[in-house]
């Protein structure tokens, strides 16, 4: 499976198992264990061969970032900081997953920061000021995000306004609406014991929880990969060798159990991280394993081809903006939960685009292309860890906002440049 592509044989790829390129599948199937390891490492690295970026470079970058910050401040890799990091990535991460859906069809949604701010404010106003039950306020806030996405999608897909302009207008409109909603009351503090606050504050205290999730994830991956392999072999088709499945499972297990162990040394598995992982698994499954997901990738690979194949292009477009709006709103609840408030100050910050830029950067750093059709929700996990590590490290060191802005912008630019370069590498090889 090429990196993040929707090809059939990849597993529910974990952070370190983005999948091999299948051009080598048959060859690999015929060779021994060592060859399969060598091929797998090459796939991770990606490169000129396919113009695809493997995750290895990003993983190496992440390790460098961690070493540097740990050297500057030895609290950086403490279980406490890493545990906080695993909660802090969720708000941005959910927004970025929504961005991935839109990037896959080769569009962009610039409104997600404002929409997430709107959801937080809508929840706070409804629940705290109006006395609406929390669960209902949550549903309304998330549904507002869906509606906003439908609104953008309508203007883009049916009226033909470029998505970038629609959502740029949306950025201002929804930010304005947020400030308007909060205008009368100023900062609203949400219930610290409530449902939304517990999204980021709740941890599963028992050590078992984290290990159970690690076991389920690793075991589920292994069984699914084995099942696919045996189905392929049963019909006489080649598949990646069994040794490679063991290798991938082993790497996944190391990452999963090391993570679980670290989290257990602080407060245990955070609820936020669990929700994030579930959403990643579900969205990856939908995109790569279902007929609907195939249409999404097809649209990113060629609108005309998709149209001729009878795919309702407009409907898919609207749906993707709805997904993006929904996840932006959901992510916004996590942001509000982390702050336990919704305030004009944070709303203005959301309008300034920091969350938007972080979300786009997370998606692109992880390997989702701005040029459509390439990438996966899993790319967000790697990307958002990189982004949040930089933010967290700079926070620990007390780096001022001005410098943080420049560094975050620079990281986004570097990621986008890498994306454009890999696209050029494809073009050089005669691909359109």
């Amino acid at each position, binding site marked *: 499976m090429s990196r993040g*592509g929707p090809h059939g044989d990849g597993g529910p790829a974990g952070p370190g198992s983005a999948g091999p390129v299948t051009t080598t599948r048959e060859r690999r199937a015929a060779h021994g264990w060592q060859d399969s390891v060598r091929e797998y490492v090459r796939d991770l690295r990606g490169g000129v061969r396919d113009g695809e970026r493997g995750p290895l470079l990003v993983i190496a970058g992440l390790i460098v970032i961690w070493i540097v910050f740990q050297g500057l401040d030895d609290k950086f890799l403490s279980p406490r900081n890493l545990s906080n990091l695993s909660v802090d990535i969720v708000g941005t991460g959910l927004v970025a997953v929504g961005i991935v859906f839109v990037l896959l069809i080769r569009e962009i949604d610039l409104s997600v920061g404002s929409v997430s701010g709107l959801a937080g404010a809508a929840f706070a106003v409804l629940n705290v000021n109006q006395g609406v039950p929390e669960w209902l306020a949550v549903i309304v806030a998330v549904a507002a995000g869906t509606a906003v996405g439908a609104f953008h999608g309508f203007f883009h897909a049916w009226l033909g306004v470029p998505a970038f302009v629609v959502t740029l207008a949306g950025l201002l409109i929804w930010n304005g609406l947020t400030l308007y909603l909060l205008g009368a009351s100023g900062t609203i503090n949400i219930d610290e014991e409530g449902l939304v606050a517990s999204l980021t504050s709740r941890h599963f205290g028992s050590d078992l929880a984290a290990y159970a999730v690690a076991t389920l994830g690793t075991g589920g991956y292994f069984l699914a990969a084995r099942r696919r392999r045996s189905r392929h072999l049963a*019909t006489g088709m080649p598949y990646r060798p069994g040794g490679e499945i063991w290798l991938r499972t082993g790497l996944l297990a190391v990452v999963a159990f090391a993570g679980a162990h670290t989290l257990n040394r602080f407060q245990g598995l955070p609820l936020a991280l669990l929700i994030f992982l579930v959403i990643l698994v579900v969205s990856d499954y939908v995109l790569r394993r279902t007929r609907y997901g195939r249409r999404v990738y097809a649209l990113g690979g060629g609108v005309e081809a998709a149209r001729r194949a009878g795919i309702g292009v407009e409907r898919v477009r609207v749906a993707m903006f709805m997904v993006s709006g929904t996840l932006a709103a959901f992510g916004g609840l996590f942001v509000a939960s982390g702050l336990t408030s919704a305030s004009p100050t944070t709303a203005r910050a959301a309008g300034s685009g920091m969350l938007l830029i972080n979300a786009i950067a997370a998606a692109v750093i992880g390997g989702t292309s701005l040029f459509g059709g390439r990438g996966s929700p899993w790319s967000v996990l790697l990307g958002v860890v990189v982004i949040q590590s930089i933010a967290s490290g700079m926070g620990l060191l007390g780096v001022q906002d001005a410098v943080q802005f420049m560094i975050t912008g620079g990281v986004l630019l570097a990621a986008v440049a890498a994306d454009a370069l890999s696209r050029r590498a494809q073009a050089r090889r005669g691909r359109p």
Partner: protein
Amino acid sequence: MAHPPVLALRGITKRFGGVQALVDVDLQVRAGEVVALAGDNGAGKSTLVKVISGVSPADRGIIEWEGRPVQVKRPHDAHALGIATVYQDLAMCDNLDVVGNLFLGREIDRVGVLDEVEMERRARDLMRALSIRIPDVRMPVAALSAGQRQAVAISRSLMGAPKVLLLDEPTAALGVEQTSHLLDLIEGVRDRGMAIILISHNMGDIKAVADRVAVLRLGRNNGLFDVSTVTQEQIISSVTGAADNAVAHRSKGGEEAWP
């Protein structure tokens, strides 16, 4: 050639504003036959393709399918009859693999979940049946050569078991060896009983693979020849509308002719 034509066009006329794109054009194709459609740029070949494929219906004229008059008003109508079109631009999703492109829009699934194994198995069978050599059906089509892409596009059009295949300039972007592979593929498809309409500029291709050649000139029929008896010069003069001109002269020199 005793069968009735699968597809017959009679008196097809189409105008765009003041321009007569097609005037009383007739064309027939039978099962197991390759009819080449030749003509200069602007002769109306593409317009005729669009009429047959339902993209842009004719103003007047009759389309007969297996002897019965039918309406082809939309691409869907053509599709439902069993007419498959491979356009020059191929229109494939570069990011999807060969299997994904072959089954695009007609995926095999179980309650919405793709059955990749079955799709891959059928894709392999199809590639083998057509003797198409592709390194791996799980390669993204972006990584294929122009000839392989063309072959995949043609095999995709065969997925719906059509009876008539329209090929719009399939060899235009191909090298010599790729062209010869493609012509083999076209012959293979014909031998499976398909009726093929091959739009081409290339006299060599027409001579190599077509049974008959229909020439369009300025939107009208300008000759229908049996390829086994006609000479290249005759086709060219019919295309250009002159028995004796520079193009015809030039091509007398060798096989490598036109354009």
